[in-house]
């Protein structure tokens, strides 16, 4: 079970969180004309990365904040966590 540092609450076990997918995906702006390909890439297409991955988690049984977690998908090592509005360095 992972041990995740919520940037708001501190170290918390994985059971308090729910996983939210790739954090690098950016929703296209509202009312913007975009191609089918661009939209499909946003809705469906994800890289199944091995290694360092920036992902979203929600502290669902805690502060309910969505956070970003930089994690190695192979080793589960967590390098850093960020608040939703924090720039990723």
């Amino acid at each position, binding site marked *: 079970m*992972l*041990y995740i540092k919520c940037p708001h609450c501190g170290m918390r*076990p994985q059971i308090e969180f729910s996983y*939210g997918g790739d954090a690098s995906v950016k929703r296209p702006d509202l009312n913007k004309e975009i191609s089918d390909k661009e939209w499909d890439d*946003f*809705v469906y297409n994800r890289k199944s990365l091995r290694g360092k991955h920036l992902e979203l988690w929600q502290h669902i049984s805690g502060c309910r904040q969505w956070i970003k977690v930089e994690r190695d998908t192979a*080793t*589960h090592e*967590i390098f850093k966590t960020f608040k939703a509005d924090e720039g990723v360095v």
Partner: protein
Amino acid sequence: MSQDFRLESVGLINRDKKLSFKFNGKKYFGYEGDTLASALLANGVHLVGRSFKYHRPRGFFGAGVDEPYAIVQLYRNNETEPNIKATEQELFEGLEAKSVNCWPSVNFDIGAINNFLKIFLPAGFYYKTFMWPKSFWYRIYEPFIRKAAGLGVASTKHDKERYEHKYEYCDLLIAGSGPSGLSSAYAAAKNGAKIILAEDKPRFGGSLLTDDVNIGNQSGKDWAEGIISELKTMPNVVVKNRSQIFGYYDHNMLVMSEKVSDHLPKTKKYHPNKRLWYIRAKEVLISSGSIERPIVFGNNDTPGVMLSSAAKEYLKVYGVLVGKNPLIFTNNDSGYETAIEFQKHGVQPMVLDSRKNPESEIIDEAKSLGINIKNSYVVVAAQGYKKVKSADIASISDDKKQLGKIENIKCDCICVSGFWTPSIHLASQSGNKTKFKEEIDAFVPGISKQQETTLGAANGVFSLEETLQTSFAKGRELSKKITDNDNEVNIPNVVEKKSSKHDKFWCVPLPAGKNYKRFLDFQNDVAVSDIEIALREGYRSIEHVKRYTTLGMATDQGKTSNLNGLQLVSEIENKVVPAVGHTTFRPPYTPISIGAIVGREVGKHSKPTRKSPMHAWHEKNNAVFVDAGVWLRPRYYKRGNENLFEGSKREAKNVRTNVGVCDVTTLGKIDIKGPDAAELLNRVYTNAWLKLPVGKARYGVMLREDGIVMDDGTTTRISENHYHMTTTTAQAANVLSHLEYYLQLVWPELNVNVVSTTEQWAGAAIAGPKSRDVLQKLFPNLDVSNEGLPFMGYMEGDLFGVKARIFRISFSGELAYEVNVESDNGNFMWEKIIEVGEDFKIQPYGTEALSTLRIEMGHVAGSELDGRTIPYDNALEGLVSKKKDFIGKRSLQRAAFTSDDRQRIVGVVPLDKKTSIPEGSHLVKDANAPLPNPKLGHISASCWSVEYDNPFSLAILKDGKNMIGEKLFVMSPLKNKVIPVEIVSSHYVDPKGERVRS
């Protein structure tokens, strides 16, 4: 039977407390502090079970967790538990155990014929033989194999024992209370670190209980006792015996199973049977010690053959002689230590040492005691079927290839020592890449991957002095890092006998003309010949060899077999052991009860139960409840002998003719506040929200980004910047997360807050032509006329002194209102509604009537919004704005979603107007078409229309738009039904929606 093999006044058992127990129906006696194994051995019982594959007689091989085959079925307090190691089960008064894997009895086992057929049961036998014909597998082969194999029977009764889970955090978790565990714990405790010290056995001390050593001028055992009692007094230390750390998981989380009650005849009141600890440790010290490894020889599985360390433990801890005429077979000095213990207690052993002329203090001591020692000698084979009677022994050449003349000598047990294998399971589970240590012919942990350190014998260090030094130092160093304290601890002086180097010898060659089974893996019946076959058939990777032969699998996880197996593969392959590598060690290290893993989340505790504030009233009024997610909702209120069909029909009918009231507390409710609230709603719902006036509600549909309908519900504008959203019962949590996702990550510029208020409001839906009359009586001072409170209107009121919210919304399709009050007032509200509604023949109605009412109105719910439908499919396209963008809009342009023959909701009526249509049935054009019959759609919901008094269903049908009036067939192979039906509009009752506006 008397305890003929028990020594007087030796051991750590409590001789004042004699216990009786039964094994295979026969009564024996033992003492408090015995294990089932030691008590049986004290009574001279060596035969415990039959082996897994060949059903060969098997006895005791180890004395603890290392035991591969002394597995029994335990009976305790009218319960039974399989897969219990006799070497770990502590004796209690009245214990009952039986042998497993034998029928009809352990003494006469029919399956033992496999032993004589063994030539036909080589590695891969099952894979090769039971392949054909395919249809035989389920009917014949599998049931037969299952009956013949297996290690016990699981109880089919509900387990009444309680198992608890505990979450714990500590600075240092120490696995094992032997010399290294105690030293590191002591040093770290002195630095104030928070420590958990876990020992799997009932007694602390590990090897110090049996080794003849001296620490700080006292015996090792006394020193251990002193340290443990001091640790127990320290507030920062938790010391646990009977507690096995069995798994090492990510981010330094380890799981430990504490046997709280297994050693007692019955679990004490309010105590659990076992407690599972989830421990998150800053640092882990693995002091799990080592397990003696066997030397492989012919018939080395005969009862009476056991590890020499086990024989020593039975003697020193339990005062039990495993034999009175022992033969000791060793390639190192450990065998001599066991021999010395026998000799000291009046039993003359013979020692066979594969080494030519070893010299050491230990050997000198053995010689001085007059022990009979034969060098360059080996056991070729054990003789005896159910018990060792003699041994074939021979001298062996220096290259270990040639045996001398074989002699047969009488003996009643063979204690074997092939040197020591560090227990690296935990380290390996942590991700540590192990390395091969040439000097000890075994793997030890390499570079740590997590915060773990392996010490002592588990790290391949067999000198007590070195173990104490490194462990004290490590405990001090790691605790200092955490607590910043650095207290000096004196490392006590150590007196231990120096030993000589072991012999790199692990397997006795077969004598000419003999074909003895030489077992590597005792639990899984894998012999040398099986590995040879696997390699001959082309298996090269050790992981493949493992799976083909079952070497190192199952509950044993190769504790005694792993290295000998690797040695054999490396020898045949002409590779070095590290190049062969070892298989993956998997948790659990030793079997753990399923009950302990499940914990208390069983039966009705497997999920929480949510009840509305009106629950007690429903109960009192004969409600029959149904699970709605985790909620309990009244399905119908039973009157007399009514069944569900009759009761729900009565309730629905009463709503259509008079008035009914339904508990709708379970609906998800989200409070939305902020200047940008309207903008948020406008983006998450498909319809327009910017112009909703204060005091008005609107129905909305929200989509996922892929265009699929996520949820629907009404949202009401309570005041300028305050909205009250309702969701379906099932999607309440998902919708909240969805809103939070967009607010926090996608549109953080929106100034809106959302919070769940599901539990803050109790809700009652009052529906039916007379609902306005009821409402007027509830709120005599309000204007609730059609003008004063029009359809989709909202107002606040005072319900006999209680603040209430009134929404004119309808799910039933009738004139209807929903009244919300704070949860604490829910029951008060409900009783008032029933009271004032009496004049209007009000009846409460449950979810079944609720469904009927919505189905015949063609209102969609969860069965249509099933994660596969878009707004069009549900006839909701009128709510999809063309002007503005919203979540999921772009997906609605996908070709499949806009195709001309897109599926759409329709109504379905059986032609005979009688036959009920099962939900989930398929709609087809031709009932007699060859299979697979093309499916045109499926029945999503069915009811008995109370308006028309005939069955009516909703269906999602291909090209539903153009299918009205068509005749199709409903097919339900599950219920064996074929029903001719007509497709009608989904709006079966009041298609113009006049009632809700009346």
